[in-house]
């Protein structure tokens, strides 16, 4: 891990503090008030706000613009960047532009395939993969050079994140891939939503045994469930998600109006377990279109006040 970026999230993680980040999806439209409202809900209860980049391949306000609105509010954004929609030229250009707007964290992703989105007819790019993007940002940051080797006038001192899914197959290869992402330059890792704690524990143990948690900050993904329907949908329809049957039954076992409460209870129990796990340095809350509940979760988990 390098100390080269200027991000506050990095300072918090380096100090050994248990970090809390939350996700914020930009609107399907041009109104910056929507972003500001979400920002207000998250202000003071998270260390950084992670802004998605046309998630699930649905066109939204750009991640860079939404991040810039958050910077204006005094919040620290983590800009997601996917390789699905831009080639290497646009990616590098946007990284520099984003940094010039005060965006100091980046989460490098390949991105959801466009066939899952609202415009499945679109041509994808995938010029480079997420691993290549991580290394590109690292080279720009540390050597001050773009992919051609050209020396840049000033370099983006970004804190670099990457994703990991402990629940995807083949399981054994997941740790090799994590190690590769760290070698490529990832400073922090954001995981897929954790519901199957047994499998996550097993994955974390492998990461600890390989010495990877010494080299990277792992933020465990947490998503509160609103209803039994949502639990079933995620289990069956969302690629790479692992929602155990007992949780689906627990969500279905309470009255419909009590389901959100039950979802929050599960969420708090999960966070409590995650905090006990060696190598987990924080959580990333993905309260999808339910940002108003983030403060309650962070407080309920005993993680307030934030540094």
């Amino acid at each position: 891990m390098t100390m080269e970026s200027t991000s506050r999230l990095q300072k918090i993680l380096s100090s050994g503090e248990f970090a809390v980040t939350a996700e914020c999806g930009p609107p399907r439209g041009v109104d910056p008030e929507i972003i500001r409202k979400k920002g207000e809900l998250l202000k003071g209860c998270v260390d950084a706000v992670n802004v998605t980049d046309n998630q699930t391949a649905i066109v939204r306000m750009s991640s860079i613009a939404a991040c810039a609105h958050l910077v204006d509010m005094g919040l620290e954004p983590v800009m997601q960047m996917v390789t699905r929609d831009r080639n290497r030229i646009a990616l590098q250009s946007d990284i520099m532009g984003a940094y010039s707007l005060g965006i100091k964290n980046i989460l490098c992703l390949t991105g959801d395939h466009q066939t899952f989105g609202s415009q499945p007819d679109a041509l994808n790019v995938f010029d480079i993969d997420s691993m290549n993007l991580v290394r590109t940002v690292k080279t720009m940051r540390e050597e001050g050079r773009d992919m051609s080797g050209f020396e840049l006038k000033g370099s983006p001192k970004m804190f670099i994140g990457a994703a990991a899914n402990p629940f995807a197959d083949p399981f054994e290869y997941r740790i090799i891939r994590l190690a590769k992402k760290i070698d490529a330059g990832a400073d922090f890792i954001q995981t897929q939503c954790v519901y199957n704690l047994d499998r996550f524990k097993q994955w974390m143990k492998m990461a600890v045994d390989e010495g990877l948690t010494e080299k990277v900050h792992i933020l465990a993904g947490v998503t509160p469930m609103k209803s039994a329907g949502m639990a079933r949908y995620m289990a069956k329809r969302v690629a790479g998600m692992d929602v155990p049957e007992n949780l689906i039954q627990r969500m279905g076992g309470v009255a419909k109006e009590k389901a959100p409460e039950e979802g929050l209870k599960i969420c708090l129990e999960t966070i409590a377990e995650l905090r006990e796990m060696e190598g987990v340095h924080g959580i990333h809350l993905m309260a999808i279109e339910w940002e108003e509940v983030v403060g309650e979760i962070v407080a309920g988990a005993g993680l307030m006040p934030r540094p």
Partner: protein
Amino acid sequence: MIVAEQKPMAEIKELVAPYKKVLILGCGTCVKTCFAGGEDEVAVMASALRLAFKVDGKEIHVEEQTVERQCEDEFIQESAPAIARNEAVLSLACGAGVQAMARRFKSTPLLPGVNTTFIGVLEKPGLFTEECSGCGDCKLAVFGGICPFTRCAKKLLNGPCGGSQNGKCEVSAETDCAWHLIIERLTALGQMDNLRTYIPPKNWRASLAAGPRRLFREDHVI
């Protein structure tokens, strides 16, 4: 081989409709092997067209012929007399074949009867799968003989995405995850170290991304 699929009959009928005399020209190589445009398919197509236009009360004269390869000038020459007798050609060859014909027969309309789909193999009877995208820079040695550029929906070079489960691709449950296959094969070959190494961004210069490609063989110039 090049794998192609016949266009829907309605589309073919529309293409052919302006003409009274049409030559259906098959190709005896790739499209024959994938049952899209060989001699047998030419015969079936000819009967289907005659019948379809008869039902509509329209007269059409359909002639049938198949050459060994429509993508080679040497073979398409044989079709010159038949082409002269007809107003248009419905070619059941791949896109390269149709264009080679267009190059040779400048005044005859050429109608494509198939959609050229991919470079692939017959995986099992009735199933053809795409295996190669002709990127011009083959790295199959690194990936155990399985191409992630072609067979991974995201063209990932450094391992599977987070959506792969039970060996299947997240984009289609019927498609094997290329990365699952690569890992299985490299494990069997004892070459998993290939996958611990960082694979740099692909050089697409040799691919179609840099424009249509030419291959010049000086040693074959006469």
